[in-house]
């Protein structure tokens, strides 16, 4: 306050910056590393989409040609848009609902069981076990799924889960769902633990009896921030998925059936070293995710009010 008076001459902006210097000081350590290792690389990467850049020579400005090629003549890209949308439409909402539903159901149990169930559902996102999925979906009779189905008599000969164009996208979606109870799920679990217990008691006095009523009138309205966090994480993981498919059904997958936009970017970036084209692909994906994020945050804040 005293400083505000001595700085009469300076603009009001500068005054309020000075007043809040404690805030900037507390932000500084994080922002230092954030700016150097995230903001600077991101800003440097923004113009890349308008260039022809092969990493060996300096980038050459080519205007919008990367974008026009993408939409007008790259058939694989158009296909990858469809794959990504199908993929995101299945994995995004389903895993978001699963994250919330499971976090809630686990919360209804005894504390010891809570830890165990949280571990069971979260463990897949910790583990890096594509090898075991390859063995489960293996195309010969030794594959766990094939041998299981043959024993049951449902199929006669082994199914090529990982190479048959009809199944690759489905298999990828299953495995993605399996690992998708990650950051969002755990954040929601923490959110449940943070709800003020007096809220439940107040609710009981006002006549809330069943779990469902408690969920709708007490839990969801006080979990807005965690729901938003989980939504952002789920958008990112469902739209940028690519590693699952690449590790599981090969790269490129049969008939590009599991070829997502991110896989396409990987293809041009790290296989053909056409970094300019790859950044244009990533930029389109970012615009889509950003728009979706705005939409969901609008919907959530409307619901919370």
């Amino acid at each position, binding site marked *: 306050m005293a400083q505000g008076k001595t700085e009469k001459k300076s603009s009001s902006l500068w005054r309020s910056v000075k007043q*809040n210097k404690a*805030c900037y000081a*507390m932000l500084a350590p994080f922002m230092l590393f954030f700016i150097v290792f995230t903001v600077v690389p991101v800003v440097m990467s923004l113009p890349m989409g308008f260039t022809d850049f092969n990493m060996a020579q300096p980038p050459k400005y080519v205007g919008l040609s990367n974008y026009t090629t993408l939409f007008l003549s790259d058939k694989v890209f158009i296909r990858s848009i469809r794959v990504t949308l199908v993929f995101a439409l299945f994995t995004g909402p389903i895993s978001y609902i699963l994250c919330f539903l499971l976090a809630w159901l686990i919360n209804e149990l005894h*504390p010891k069981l809570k830890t165990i169930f949280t*571990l069971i559902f979260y463990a897949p996102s910790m583990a*890096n076990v594509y090898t075991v999925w390859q063995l489960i979906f293996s195309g010969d009779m030794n594959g766990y799924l094939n041998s299981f189905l043959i024993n049951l008599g449902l199929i006669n000969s082994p199914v090529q889960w990982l190479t048959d164009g009809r199944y690759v996208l489905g298999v990828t979606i299953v495995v993605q769902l399996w690992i998708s109870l990650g950051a969002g799920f755990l954040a929601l679990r923490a959110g449940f633990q943070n709800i003020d217990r007096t809220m439940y008691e107040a609710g009981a006095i006002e006549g809330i009896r069943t779990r469902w009523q408690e969920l709708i009138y007490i839990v969801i309205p006080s979990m807005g921030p965690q729901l938003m966090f989980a939504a952002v994480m789920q958008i990112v993981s469902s739209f940028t998925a690519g590693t699952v498919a690449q590790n599981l059904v090969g790269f490129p997958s049969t008939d590009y059936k599991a070829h997502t936009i991110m896989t396409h970017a990987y293809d041009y970036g790290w296989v053909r070293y056409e970094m300019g084209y790859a950044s244009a692909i990533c930029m389109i994906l970012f615009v889509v995710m950003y728009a979706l994020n705005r939409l969901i945050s609008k919907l959530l804040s409307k619901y919370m009010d």
Partner: protein
Amino acid sequence: MAQINTAKLKASNRQAGRKIGGTVAIFVFLTILGLFMAMPIYLTVIMSIKPVEELFIFPPKLYAVRPTLDNFRDMFEVLHQNRVPFSRYVFNSVFVTLTVTLCQCVFASMAAFVLAKCKFPGSRLLNHIIVIALLYQSNVIYIMQYMVMAKLRMIDTYMALILPSIASPMGLFLMRQSISQVPDSMIEAAKVDGAGYFRICWQIVMPNQKPALMTLIIFAFQAAWNIQTGALVFQEQYKTLPTVVTQAASSGMARAGIAMAAAVFMLIPPIIVFMIAQKHVIETMAHSGIKE
């Protein structure tokens, strides 16, 4: 056994009016779904203790007939052939992981408090930038990051492994969302008492943020533990465990057993951290219950 479980379930009911049937139904549902979820990890563990001749028999068995630790022994044998002693990799990984986790939690908590609870020029913009950083995924970033690190002469040092992971937008976003639920009145009261932002953050807000902080520790530890040295480090003495373990396991399907052993081995520390942290998350509830 069923009786013990039922008794436990009963004890967990917040209100006496709760129907026990519902809780049992939830338990059964979660158990069935949990079995499906745990299956691949169970198979990984089983395959890591199967001898080679059992790995490819038909029909594949869901258990090991003659369990063995050969796969683990082979993995360590490969690792011991490196020029650098195995303990050096363990030290590197522990050092990198602890430093990143500690810095990430402290820095993200402070920044999150400020972004959630203080209004100052630029606060709205910064909040926006954090979400954008989460959504912007481009494979060119790594090249640019590498260029920045090369300019700062960090390549081939511990710095290259530690510093880029310290400021995690996800960690900040998580803490920010959680701290935004703290009532403003609490902070105003502390301000009236003459506490500065730094003290409010660490003595008033953070002690109430145990669930979010513990969750952040899990994320940070897990990510840092899996930092691959990639092109950032060339000298053997700075390499981390995931790098060398992946090398040892990457000989294709013929050595599936070793790959499984490596996966199990790398999974143990994050699971231990997870268990400890989750215990604290859940105790938060129990304590606030006793207080009232």
